[in-house]
């Protein structure tokens, strides 16, 4: 999940929103098995991506060196080993760099509608009514294949280590075991692919804004606020019973929310805390928060990562059968383009909880602090 800020106002961009969305839709492939015809890597090159993450993309001209300062772990998780990623996973990833995919993935142009914390918003350089872009995608087919390959290995490992499974999808191995260590190395490689993917998409978003609006890169002013993983296990140091310990923190349905002053919080944000990005649904709003000391102490530096669904995908399909979501959203001032009608129905706003209520709970519990609310104006979906 990545958030970009811009130097553009909502009013300035509004008349060209349809063109921007159309161009994003044409230039950032989305939908089932989406792939790029203009960026197909050799297997050897792809293994470089798995090792270097976002910095590989920047070395190829997709973005600026400064982008890395605003990415979790600098856009490269250490300990990644491309050799642990199967040839089949590499094959799936070769032409998927710079693609969105389907499901709940999206690129959303929005604007800063409300600011709750002036000081933090200043540090994050988020201004009232300024245009923002959210990029929500991950490691694509490569990541699913790594998962699939290791589920097969973990089913065998669970037998080997005598672990009784209530559900086979929960197959596992001890962290300190050959299987556990190999998985962490492969998962980190997949995370690096995800960082590179969002970096390549960022470069396309910048180019599209510049081309459609006829602006220089400086005038468009698109820069990275932050890029944070949504599903990952990482080795981190935390205090447990008064003692510093090195732990594996697995955030699934959760996101990192490190406090002010933490060495892994980027220098520009160190006084206010690590930015936390929480997407809502495409019809309402998303939130920017910052991490807190309390989250660090109580939840190993973690907070929620999204609204969560309230309608099943099957129920959403049924509920939206006779509706034109594109027109409904357009009436609310939101331009939407989607590869598949089914995905659009499954992702309809009513399918999700109201993220405002979810975010308020996190804010009141002190697990992260509200900074700004972003409202969508243009969305591309898979």
């Amino acid at each position, binding site marked *: 999940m990545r958030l970009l800020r811009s130097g553009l106002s909502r009013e300035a961009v509004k008349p060209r929103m349809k063109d921007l969305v159309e161009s994003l839709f044409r230039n950032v492939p989305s*939908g*089932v*098995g989406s792939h790029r015809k203009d960026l197909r890597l050799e297997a050897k090159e792809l293994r470089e991506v798995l090792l270097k993450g976002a910095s590989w993309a920047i070395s190829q001209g997709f973005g600026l060196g400064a982008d890395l300062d605003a990415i979790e772990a600098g856009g490269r998780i250490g300990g990644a080993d491309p050799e642990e990623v199967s040839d*089949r996973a590499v*094959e*799936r990833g070769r032409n998927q760099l710079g693609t969105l*995919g*389907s*499901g*709940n993935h999206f690129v959303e142009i929005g604007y800063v509608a409300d600011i709750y914390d002036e000081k933090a918003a200043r540090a994050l350089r988020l201004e009232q009514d300024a245009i923002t872009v959210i990029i929500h995608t991950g490691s694509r*087919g490569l990541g*699913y*294949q790594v*998962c*699939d390959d290791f*589920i*097969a290995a973990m*089913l065998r490992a669970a037998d080997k280590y005598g672990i009784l499974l209530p*559900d*086979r*999808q929960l*197959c596992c191995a001890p962290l300190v075991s050959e299987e556990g260590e190999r998985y962490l190395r492969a998962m980190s490689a997949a995370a690096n692919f995800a960082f590179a993917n969002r970096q390549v998409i960022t470069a396309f978003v910048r180019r599209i804004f510049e081309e459609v609006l006829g602006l220089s890169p400086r005038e468009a002013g698109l820069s990275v606020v932050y890029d944070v993983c949504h599903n990952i296990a990482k080795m981190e140091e935390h205090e447990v019973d008064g003692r510093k310990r090195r732990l594996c923190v697995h955030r699934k349905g959760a996101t990192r929310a490190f406090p002010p002053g933490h060495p892994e919080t980027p220098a520009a944000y160190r006084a206010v805390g690590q930015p936390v990005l929480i997407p809502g649904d495409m019809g309402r709003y998303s939130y920017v928060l910052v991490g807190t000391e309390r989250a660090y102490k109580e939840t190993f530096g973690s907070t929620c990562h999204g609204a969560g*669904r*309230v*309608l*099943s*995908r*099957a*129920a959403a*399909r049924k509920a939206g059968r006779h509706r034109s979501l594109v027109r409904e959203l357009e009436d609310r001032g939101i331009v939407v383009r989607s*590869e*598949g009608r*089914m*995905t659009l129905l*499954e992702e309809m706003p009513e399918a999700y909880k109201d993220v405002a209520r979810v975010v308020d709970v996190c804010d009141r519990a002190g697990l992260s602090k509200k900074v700004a609310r972003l409202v969508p104006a243009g969305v591309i979906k*898979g």
Partner: protein
Amino acid sequence: MKACCESPVEYRLLEHTADLGIEVRAADLAELFARAGAALADLLYDPAPVAETLYRVVLLDERDREILLVRWLNELIFLREVEEFLWKRVEVEIDGAFRLRAVLLGEAFEATRHVPRTGLKAATYHMLCIEPGPQNLVARVLFDV
């Protein structure tokens, strides 16, 4: 045992908050796998305009039938995603030791003629089951969306 079927087949969509699932019924294991493959096609794209001009062969060997079902459906998702192959007719042969040989008849995806539906990442083991029904076998499988 051997079976074949053509998409679309009858199947039930399962309610699950975050993901999508299917329930298929058949007289034996080979037919169950063939019908699951055809149901998956119907989830991924509209099978109606798919011509049967190309074929793919899938060979799998697993230690039990549940693992075999997940592997089978994931092979199909891989074919759709990486080779852009759309299948319409599914022929499946399974021997007693959970060895599967399948032939898929279909064609390559063409944006002008084919209609994609849902994007699925993978078949999962979550709540996976193959069990006897009143007169047949029933399989339920959830897909990560």
